[in-house]
């Protein structure tokens, strides 16, 4: 101790350093908000406003194929002029044509049915994982996440070879003698259900798993100890406690599935109507930008409510995590 003479040698007095740098520190702190905020405003929010604006424009054979275009050089009056040219014609067109109405309805129906099946299949998997020995849980978790890392397109593509009339599934079923004639699955709704359930299953399983894993198994034992039979204990204890996971999982499947393009396009064939595909065709085949914008606006409006639910659930989870 003798050599470590650490008497209170007065180090730098606090007065010596003025308070410059605090505002700089505050600014650099703020930059963390400002930069991503600005980025998202410009590349996420503004584009939506443009979509909305173009959905009110007329189709024109030009590049870009709509009018009025923004012309900032025309100043405020020019801008006002262009506003006066806006019309709701595209929306009237959408509501008039049963094609669009049907596409919206069938998108929602297909997404809802697929979500239901994803829950039905995902729940036992998540439950089994949550009840698995703690040592294998990380491995199982990785196995659920792994397909998510492999290309969506590839996973959908893989089903074509399985589902088509001369595909592997039919070969197998004919070989076992269950059927004589190949089943027609590809290019039907069934193929879309399979595709969506398959592609989005990890999104369902992960939130379910995290809800179920947190659950204390002794709650079930307590319920049974108090005279509750297993099935009823499931409905009265496990199910309500898994509810946040169920809600999050269903929204994570339902919302993107509603606007899905790749799955109906590759597995659903030309007969299937889904709004994502309709939008794609309007845009790439018909080059009708105003109408595809209107399609997007209505799709967005339909999804705003479930999205807000999702965000609320996220915010709640965040609060609890704290």
């Amino acid at each position: 101790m003798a050599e470590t003479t650490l008497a209170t040698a007065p180090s730098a007095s606090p007065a010596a350093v003025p308070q410059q740098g605090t505002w700089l520190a505050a600014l650099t702190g703020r930059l963390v908000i400002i930069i991503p905020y600005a980025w998202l405003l410009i590349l996420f929010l503004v584009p939506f406003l443009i979509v909305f604006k173009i959905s009110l424009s007329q189709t024109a054979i030009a590049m870009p194929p709509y009018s009025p275009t923004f012309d900032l050089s025309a100043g405020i009056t020019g801008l006002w002029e262009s506003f006066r040219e806006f019309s709701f014609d595209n929306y009237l067109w959408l509501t008039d044509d049963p094609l669009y109405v049907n596409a919206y309805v069938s998108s929602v129906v297909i997404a809802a049915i697929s979500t239901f099946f994803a829950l039905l299949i995902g729940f036992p998997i998540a439950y089994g994982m949550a009840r698995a020995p703690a040592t294998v849980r990380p491995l199982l978790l990785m196995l659920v996440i792994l397909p998510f890392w492999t290309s969506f397109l590839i996973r959908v593509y893989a089903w074509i070879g399985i589902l088509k009339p001369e595909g592997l599934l039919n070969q197998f079923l004919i070989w076992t003698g269950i059927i004589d004639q190949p089943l027609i699955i590809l290019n039907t709704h069934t193929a879309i259900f399979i595709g969506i359930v398959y592609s989005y299953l990890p999104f369902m399983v992960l939130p379910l798993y995290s809800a179920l894993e947190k659950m204390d198994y002794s709650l079930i034992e307590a319920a049974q100890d108090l005279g509750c039979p297993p099935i009823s204990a499931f409905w009265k204890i496990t199910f309500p406690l898994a509810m946040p996971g169920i809600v999050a999982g269903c929204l994570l499947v339902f919302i993107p599935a509603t606007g899905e393009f790749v799955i109906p396009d590759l597995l659903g064939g030309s007969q299937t109507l889904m709004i994502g595909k309709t939008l794609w065709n309007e845009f790439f085949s018909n080059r009708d930008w105003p109408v595809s914008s209107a399609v997007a606006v209505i799709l967005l409006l339909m999804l705003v409510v479930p999205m807000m639910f999702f965000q609320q659930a996220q915010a709640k989870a965040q609060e609890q995590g704290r």
Partner: protein
Amino acid sequence: MKSLGSIRRSFSPWTDPAAKPYIVFENVTKKFGDFTAVNNLSLAIYEREFFALLGASGCGKSTLLRMLAGFDEPTSGRILLDGQDLRGIPPYRRPVNMMFQSYALFPHMSVEQNIAFGLKQEGMPKADIDKRVADMLKLVKLEQFAKRKPHQLSGGQRQRVALARSVAKRPKVLLLDEPLGALDKKLREETQFELMDLQQNLGLTFVVVTHDQEEAMTMADRIAILDKGQVMQVATPAEVYEAPVSRFVANFVGNVNMLEGTVAERSEKTATITGASGAQIRVENAGDATAGSTVAFAIRPEKIKVSSRKPDGAANVMEGEIYDLAYLGDMTVYHVRLVDGQVVKASALNSSRITEDPLSWNDKAWISFAPDAGVVLTR
């Protein structure tokens, strides 16, 4: 010379009117939204003092420490360090260092790197840093652990690293937030004395936050007892224990019997208190209790004598019966139910192995105590 408790060292600048306090809290208030964590609090701490902030969780003690370190700013009032107003000075420019409750050791750095971190921020030359780190490692006896990462250390070793890191910069003041909270009981007792030695040898001012009264009593020169963001009492451990100023402090520190009554008679120093059942208590050091006021007579269990026969010559004697008793090895605690129904705790040191005349449940018993064995509390 008469004194309260036993004196550890003759260090008492707070009794010297000429001494200048080193750290001053001046009418400090801190609000978090609607919650007032610290309420118009004033406090003075002297240089080289080992000062403890004691209180239950949520009493505002940690907030005081964090305001001193610079992590929170007072809503109103000021904090002075060596005459300098600390307002607006960010934590990284304050000449105080803190030892965190969680130790907050940087997990990706070795023990050495952790200790050197603060020195590097100062821009100290590398050779000096190495020398200082070596000194610090020696000080906390961790020389052979220099290259280890925090997760490769035991709890006690981590505590030492945190300590070494926080004193490496030779701060004017060391703040310790529950420094021993994460250690087990045995290690805690050893470390208490090590901390005291360190503080003496380095000549630093220590401000320690704790909820453990024993820890505060053992280590501190003075203790501030806090409740709801206010100071209840600032005094030496002995004063806090033997002369609490309020019912709250008396109850908070150690065990106490609270005999409520009214002051029947008051002379210059002595007074007579009449209990609820009419029993009279004669006391000295009546403080500021005036005749007719409602007061509590606070007396510690070890100051009460229990006997099976009525004692002669005691100033205060009360009759009762043994209601409950607990044999704790080194002492026995008696719960005596007085005639008026009140239960009084009394503890007796088992200084001999064999008791001639043991007291048992429901035995008739007398308690007795001296007139100066307790204090009269008006608050």
